[in-house]
């Protein structure tokens, strides 16, 4: 869970009084200034080399040296994984670079996300109706997460569950199953009759054409046609 970061803020470390900046070479200084000027967005190595107009071998050496001196750090850019991206050490990389709280090392952390989503879902199904605070409290007590989760993060997870059609968002009317929840408060309910699983399969999506990726290329007498369709053949192969 340590991989869950706090939403990034532009934390600025106080520079040391005996700053390693003093000991930089000319090229190191140029490169450092280019990287630093990009603040929390940082810069891709090749772009940096172009801007700084420093020969490749010199730049590589300088980057290594700056890293050892802890003036810059390499971060994973979620958009360009595998490409070297640098940020000045005094900045926390922006969420555009890291992906935000649910990313770790440039990848979305599905293991953590799925465990947490599942916990939220279990709680909602157990309670039938639950509020965000209730869910957060339950997850805290369960001890499943060793990192302090925020209400915002729980809300993100539950909203995704709504989009999955696993739960529905409703407003309390203070009656019946809502009697312990103030009127008008947003809460989450299990979907129809408490049964989990995929939504109803529609008439269209239960036949080959409904799920066919090539339906727009299919014509009655074309190369792709209902007569030649291999999906139909599979479907009708009893």
């Amino acid at each position, binding site marked *: 869970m340590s991989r869950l970061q706090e939403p990034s803020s532009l934390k600025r470390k106080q520079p040391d009084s005996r700053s390693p900046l003093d000991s930089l070479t000319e090229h190191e200084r140029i490169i450092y200034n280019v990287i630093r000027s990009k603040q929390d967005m940082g810069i891709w190595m090749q772009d940096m080399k172009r801007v700084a107009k420093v020969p490749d071998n010199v730049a590589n050496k300088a980057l290594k040296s700056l890293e050892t001196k802890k003036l810059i750090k390499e971060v994973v850019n*979620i*958009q360009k*994984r595998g490409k070297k991206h640098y940020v000045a050490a005094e900045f926390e990389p922006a969420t*555009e670079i890291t*992906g*935000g709280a*649910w990313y770790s090392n440039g*990848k*979305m952390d*599905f293991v953590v*996300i799925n465990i947490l989503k599942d916990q939220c879902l279990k709680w909602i199904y157990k309670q039938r109706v639950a509020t965000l605070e209730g869910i957060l409290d339950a997850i805290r007590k369960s001890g499943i997460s060793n990192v302090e989760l925020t209400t915002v993060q729980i809300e*993100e997870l539950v*909203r*995704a569950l709504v*989009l*999955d*059609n696993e739960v529905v968002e409703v407003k309390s009317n203070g009656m019946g199953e809502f009697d312990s929840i103030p009127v008008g408060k947003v809460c989450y309910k299990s979907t*129809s*009759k408490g049964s989990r699983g*995929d*939504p*109803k*399969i*529609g*008439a*269209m*999506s*239960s*036949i080959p*054409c*409904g*799920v*066919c*990726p090539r*339906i*727009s290329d*299919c014509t*009655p007498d074309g190369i792709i*046609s*209902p*007569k030649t*369709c291999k999906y*139909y053949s599979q*479907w*009708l192969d*009893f």
Partner: protein
Amino acid sequence: MATPYGIKFAVHLITSHFGNLVANVCENLLRKGPLTLQQLIRFTELTPLQIKNSLLILIQHNCVQPFSSEQIGAGGNEVKVTQYLVLFDNILHRLRFPKFLEIVSEELDKNCGEILEGLLQHGRLTLEQIYERARDNAVQDAVRESFQKLLNSRFVERCPAPEPFVEPSTIKSSNKRGAKSAKLDEVSETEEQRVLAAAASLDTLRFSILTPSGTEFDEDKKDGDSSSSMGVGEKRKHGAADSDDAFGSNENEVILWRANFEEFTRYLRHKACIENVRARLDVGAATVLKAMLDATRSAEKKVKTENSVSLSMDTIFEEVMKSEAGRSLTLDRVRASLVQLGCSSSGTDDTYSIDLKQIIELAQKEEVESIVLRRYGRDAYRMFRLLSKAGLLQETDKIADMTFVEKKEAPKILGKLWKDEYLHMEVEYFNLLIKFTLSSNMAICDVVDKPRLTLSGMSDLVLMDQNKEIVNKFVVDRNTTFYLWKVNKPILWQHVLDEMYHAALNLSLRVIHELDQKKELLTIPPEKRTGPLEKEFKRLKNAKFFLESSLMKLDDALMLFRHF
């Protein structure tokens, strides 16, 4: 109006029921809008007699409605011309005849079913012909009683006027309309409605067996006139007398009857609403809804009515008690079900009405989402639901964040949905807001007062002028370019409907193909079908059943998007 595959499917239905000649005439009417006989001769290149006979068949089967209007003739004088309007919906209804028969057998009885069967088979019949058909099976009184039952429940109606006169000003656009001009669709829709409204008989007459003079029509006809009464096989000539400029303007007012598709559609719409509520809420809510709809069906003005007819609490409870399932419900349960159905008492008079439109829209949404889930996967499903709920443009990264999809993957999934016309896309490039529409796999768009723009790939934008010369090329830079997405419901719904027509056509064509493949197998007498032949025969039978029942199920969805 009909979508491209809607037309193809309708033509397919007509071809398989009435052959190529009739289908040719029908296709021209579907693609070009109402036409005169002269125009049809020009477009179809058939002989006048062939066209006349085709039109007679289409009119007899309620697929074409003639109407007359005044046009400026060659000499500058106003002349009365007859035009033929094809009724797309009635062609599609042919697919549903088994459903209509089932409804009548369930709601009424077998005898009523037989009368309806005759009407569906022959399109239009006189009372006399109806009696004649039943002569062997039942006594006339019983037939009359069954017919009256059908009329009372409005499953049968008097045929509309054979050729109503429609004010010329209201049908201006008729001949200019082509299949391509989507903009005129709305105009033609109202035009169709106008013609139908002009042809419709008065409500009092529509479901009444009595003639305006108060006598039962068949009484007049019974004696003396029997020589002119034709056999069922010759029915066509009845509805439409063969005159030069107008079919069916028979002066001797022959009253013809036909199945009332509107009532069947309403019945199926109600059924769809009830089934949706049963699945989404519970049996109680479905029972209450059914009781309310059953009680008010005849009071509904049009099929696509948005709200059910208002009823008081007392009436609702009374209606609920009429059914077996309803008898177990208490007043409190009925009240709770009404709340579940989203209707609270309106105003001071304690009456309740249910938002049927909302139920239908939910069902439509479920159907589309189910396609997205099965065709594009769960991530796409979540993204689609987000956009469909938001109803406005959303940026790629924001969508990815809210749906827990990798930011790198999100544009690929959204792009795929866009290419298949499930999403609408706009690109914000600096301050240019660029709107994209698809045209044969190329994205074409107009930036206000700027040259035309085309998009190649998802990674760069190519700006081209009218001559397709490249003016500028932008590498898409994440800092200056934003992709925005949204679900454009009216356009998407139309697209999904077209895909459904396409799928329905494919199912029908596959049935024909399967049977065609095994032609010889079908000619082998049952006693000689043994071993592998028997197995193959069973497979064919299963395949046919599978395809046909899928078509019936798909037709439920077609109705949901087209008629409900």
